C-alpha cells in the first residue's frame, strides 16, 4: 500500500539510474518513494540486460587495465555520435566516471576481475560480476536497507505539473489507483522503445515487425508527460538504436543471447533473395549497429544470413540453432525463399570472388569484384554443405528522444530555464550526450553519473 504522506522525492523507474538516484537521495536524508512499473522478478528496466560501464581512469585499477583518459574517451564518444553531443555534459560525465566504481562497490556492486571471453574491453569498461541484474539486485538491497519505499507493479500514470513545478503523481499500484505526493521528482523511466505505437509514428507499419531487445515496460509515458508539460526535447524523435538480431527472438526482453555475429562471414539476402549491403565492410563490433536499420528497410523487415559449414565455428554461438540444409535450394525451401533466385544470388556472389587469404581475425583481402553491393572482406564461396541460415530482424535497443537537462540533472524547460523540482537521469536524458550511435557501456555511465547527480540535487532541493 502506498502511504498517504508527503515524500521528499518520487523516483519514477526501477533501473540503474533510478536506483542510483534513490540511494543517493536517501543517503542524504531525503524520504524517497520509488515506483517500478515491472513486477519484482522483472525489475530493473534495461539495466537488467547490461553488463558493464565505461570508465575513464588515469592508471590501472582493480577492475580496469592500463589507462583511459578523458580526452580519449570524449574522442571515442564524438566519433560514434558524429558530434551530436553536449560536450560540456559529456566531459562532466566522463570526469565523474573516474569516481563511480568505488561508490558502486560500497553500495554492493561487484566487478569481474578481468574478462576471458570474446570481448576485449577490459581497458575501457568495468564488468559487473554476473551482469546488470546482479547490479540491480545489489542496489535494491541497498535501497531497502536505507529505507527507500519501493513499490513494484506500480506504474506512474500522470504527473501533476503546474508551470514547470511538480506536486504529485497518479499511480496504478498492483491494480489500485493511488496518489503519490512528493516535493521533488526524478524521472528515470527510460525511453519509449517498448511502445510499438509510438515507434510506428516514425517508422510506420514496419515497426510492427521490430523486436525489442529489452524491457517491455519502457513505454515512454513519463517522457511524454514531461514533453507535454513543456520540457525541452532533445534527440531525434524518429531514431532508435537497432541491431540485427535473430528473427526468432521473443518480442521483448530477448537480451544478449539473440545477438548474431555471423554477418561478416555470410551472404545476407532479403525476401527477394537479393543482397543489399556489404556484409564485410568492417569488423562486426563496428558494424553491427547499422544492420538493424538495414534490415528494417527490407520488405517485411526480415533478412537471412547464409553461411556454409566452413564458417560455422567462426562466431559466438547464438541461442537459436541455424536452419540447416544439404543444398542451397533446400535451404531456400526451408526459409520460404525462391530456390532459383537464391541459387542465382549465391552463384553470382561466388563468380565475383577474387582470390585472397582468408583471416577471420582481421580485415583480410578476400573480396568480390564487379558485384553490387560488393563484399569487401571475408568473401568466400558458399560451397561446402551443409548450408546454414540465420533469419534476421531489427532489434531495438533504445530510443534517442529525451528531455534536455543541465549539469545538475535538472529538466530544462522550453523557456530555457531549469525546472525547480524535476530531474531526469538515465535513458530518458541520455540523448543529451548520445545523440547518435552507441559506445559500449556509456548508457550505464550516464545512468550512474546522472542518477547520483539527480539524487544529490533532489536532496539539496528538499533540504534547502
Amino acid at each position, binding site marked *: 500500500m502506498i502511504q498517504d504522506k508527503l515524500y521528499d522525492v518520487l523516483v519514477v523507474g526501477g533501473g540503474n539510474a533510478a536506483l542510483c538516484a534513490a540511494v543517493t537521495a536517501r543517503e542524504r536524508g531525503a524520504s524517497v518513494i520509488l515506483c517500478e512499473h515491472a513486477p519484482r522478478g522483472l525489475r530493473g528496466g534495461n539495466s537488467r540486460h547490461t553488463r558493464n560501464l565505461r570508465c575513464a581512469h588515469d592508471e590501472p585499477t582493480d577492475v580496469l587495465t592500463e589507462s583511459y583518459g578523458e580526452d580519449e574517451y570524449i574522442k571515442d564518444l564524438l566519433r560514434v555520435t558524429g558530434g551530436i553531443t553536449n560536450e560540456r555534459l559529456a566531459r562532466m560525465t566522463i570526469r565523474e566516471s573516474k569516481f563511480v566504481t568505488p561508490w558502486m562497490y560500497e553500495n554492493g556492486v561487484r566487478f569481474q576481475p578481468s574478462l576471458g571471453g570474446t570481448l576485449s574491453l577490459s581497458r575501457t569498461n568495468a564488468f559487473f*560480476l554476473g551482469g546488470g541484474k546482479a547490479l540491480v539486485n545489489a542496489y535494491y538491497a541497498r535501497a531497502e536497507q536505507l529505507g527507500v519505499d519501493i513499490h513494484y507493479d506500480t506504474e506512474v500514470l500522470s504527473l501533476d505539473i503546474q508551470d514547470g513545478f511538480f506536486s504529485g503523481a497518479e499511480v496504478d499500484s498492483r491494480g489500485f489507483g493511488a496518489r503519490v505526493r512528493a516535493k521533488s521528482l526524478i524521472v528515470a523511466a527510460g525511453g519509449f522503445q517498448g511502445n510499438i505505437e509510438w515507434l510506428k509514428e516514425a517508422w510506420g507499419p514496419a515497426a510492427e515487425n521490430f523486436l525489442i531487445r529489452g524491457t517491455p515496460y519502457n513505454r515512454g509515458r513519463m517522457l511524454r508527460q514531461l514533453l507535454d508539460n513543456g520540457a525541452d526535447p532533445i534527440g531525434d524523435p524518429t531514431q532508435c538504436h537497432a541491431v540485427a538480431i535473430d528473427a526468432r527472438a521473443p518480442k521483448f526482453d530477448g*537480451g544478449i543471447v539473440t545477438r548474431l555475429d555471423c554477418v561478416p562471414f555470410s551472404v545476407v539476402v532479403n525476401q527477394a533473395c537479393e543482397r543489399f549491403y556489404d556484409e564485410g565492410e568492417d569488423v562486426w563490433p563496428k558494424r553491427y549497429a547499422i544492420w538493424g536499420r538495414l534490415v528494417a528497410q527490407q520488405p517485411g523487415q526480415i533478412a537471412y544470413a547464409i553461411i556454409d559449414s566452413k564458417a560455422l565455428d567462426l562466431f559466438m554461438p547464438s541461442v537459436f540453432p541455424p536452419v540447416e540444409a544439404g543444398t542451397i535450394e533446400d535451404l531456400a525451401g526451408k526459409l520460404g525463399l525462391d530456390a532459383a533466385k537464391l541459387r542465382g544470388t549465391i552463384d553470382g556472389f561466388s563468380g565475383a570472388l577474387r582470390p585472397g587469404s582468408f583471416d577471420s581475425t582481421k580485415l583480410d583481402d578476400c573480396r568480390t569484384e564487379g558485384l553490387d553491393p560488393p563484399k569487401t572482406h571475408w568473401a568466400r564461396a558458399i560451397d561446402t554443405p551443409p548450408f546454414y541460415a540465420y533469419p534476421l530482424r531489427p532489434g531495438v535497443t533504445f530510443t534517442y528522444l529525451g528531455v534536455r537537462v543541465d549539469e545538475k540533472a535538472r529538466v530544462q524547460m522550453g523557456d530555457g530555464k531549469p525546472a525547480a523540482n524535476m530531474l531526469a537521469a538515465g535513458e530518458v536524458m541520455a540523448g543529451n550526450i548520445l545523440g547518435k550511435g552507441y559506445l559500449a557501456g556509456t548508457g550505464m555511465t550516464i545512468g550512474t553519473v546522472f542518477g547520483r547527480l539527480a539524487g544529490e540535487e533532489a536532496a539539496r532541493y528538499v533540504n534547502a
Partner: protein
Amino acid sequence: MSTLETTPSLVALAQGLEADTLAEARRTMEVCNACRYCEGYCAVFPAMELHRQFSDADLVHLANLCHGCKGCYYACQYAPPHPFGLNVPRTFADLRRESYEAFAWPAPLARLFQRNGLFVSLATAVALIVTMALSTLLISPERLFGVHRGPGSFYSVVPYDVMVWVATLTFGFAVLALGMGLRNYWATAGRKAIGWKSLALALHDALTLRHLSGGGHGCNDTDEGFTQGRRWLHQAMMWGFLLCFASTSVATVYDHLLGWIAPYSWYSLPVLLGTVGGVGLTVGSGGLFWLKLRTDPEPLSPRNLGMDAGLLALLFLVATTGLALLFFRHTSAMGMLLVIHLGVVLAFFLTLPYGKFVHGIYRFAALVRDHADCRAGDSA
C-alpha cells in the same frame, strides 16, 4: 570440444538419465553459452565456453562441477518470470541426482536415489532398532546399564569382534561401492589423460571450497545477497568429518597395532581430533540444515531435499551421539549411548554409497577433469 562424444557408456548413461532433464540442461547451456554474463562466478561457465555443442557426458560433467552457489540464478536475466525460464542451479541439481543414480553400483541399488530421504530415514531407523534390540537381547542389563571405567570399557558392552567385523564389512562395502561409482562416472564424464598438477589443483579447490566463494564474494545462501555462511558451514562439516575420520584411523592404529585399548583420555590424539571434528560436524550439518529451511526454494530442486536433508541429519546424529558418548562415558548411560552411536554409524556406512555423500566423490572428479581440460586448452 569434448573427446568423449563416442564413449560407448553414453548409451547406458542416457538410459539411466531422464531425457527431459538432459534436454533441459542442454537448452539451458545453449542459452548460457550465448550470454556468458556469469563467467565470473565459478568454474562451470568457463568450462561451458569450451563447447559449442553439449554431449550428455559434457552436461553430466558440468552438472557435477556446479556447487549450487546460486549466483547465476539471481544474476540471470532469463530466470523466471522471463519466458526462457532458466534455472541453472535447479536444472543441474536434478541432473546431478539422476547421474548419482546412473552411476550407482551395484545397479539394482540405484533406485535408492529416487526417494532418498525416505530410504536414509528408514535405513537409520532400522539400523537403530536392530542394534538396540540386539543389544538389549544379547547384553545383560548389568553390562548395558552399568558404569564402566578404564581400557576396554566399550568392549565390555559391545564385544570387540562384533564392532570390528561389522565396521569392516559395512565400511569396506561402502568404499567398494563408492569406488565402482567413481569408475562408472569417470568412464562417462571423465577424460583419458590427467596429470598430477590437475589432481593437486582439484584437491586445493575441494579443500578450500573455492567455488562456493561465488567469484570471491560468497554465495547467494538464502536470497540475492552474498554471504560466506554456507561455505564456512560446509567447511566446518567437511573438516569436522575428516577430523572424525582421522580420529577413528588413529584410534584403529592405537588399538590394533600399538595395543592401546580404548577409551582414551581427554587429551589423547583420537579424543582431541574426535571432539573438534564432532563439534565442527554438529555446527556444520546443523547450520546447513538451518540455512536450507530459510533459503529461497526457487533455485533448489524440490526432489533433492530429502536426499540433502537425509545426509545432514545423519551426520548431525553421528556427531551428537559421538559427543554424548564422550561426555557420558563414565556414567551408566554409556552402554545405551554406545549402542545408539554405533547404530547411527552403521546407518551412515550402509547409506554412504546411496545418498548425498557421493556428491563429494563426483564433484572432485569433475574438478579434476576441469583442471585437466583447462590445461589442455592452455597448451592447445
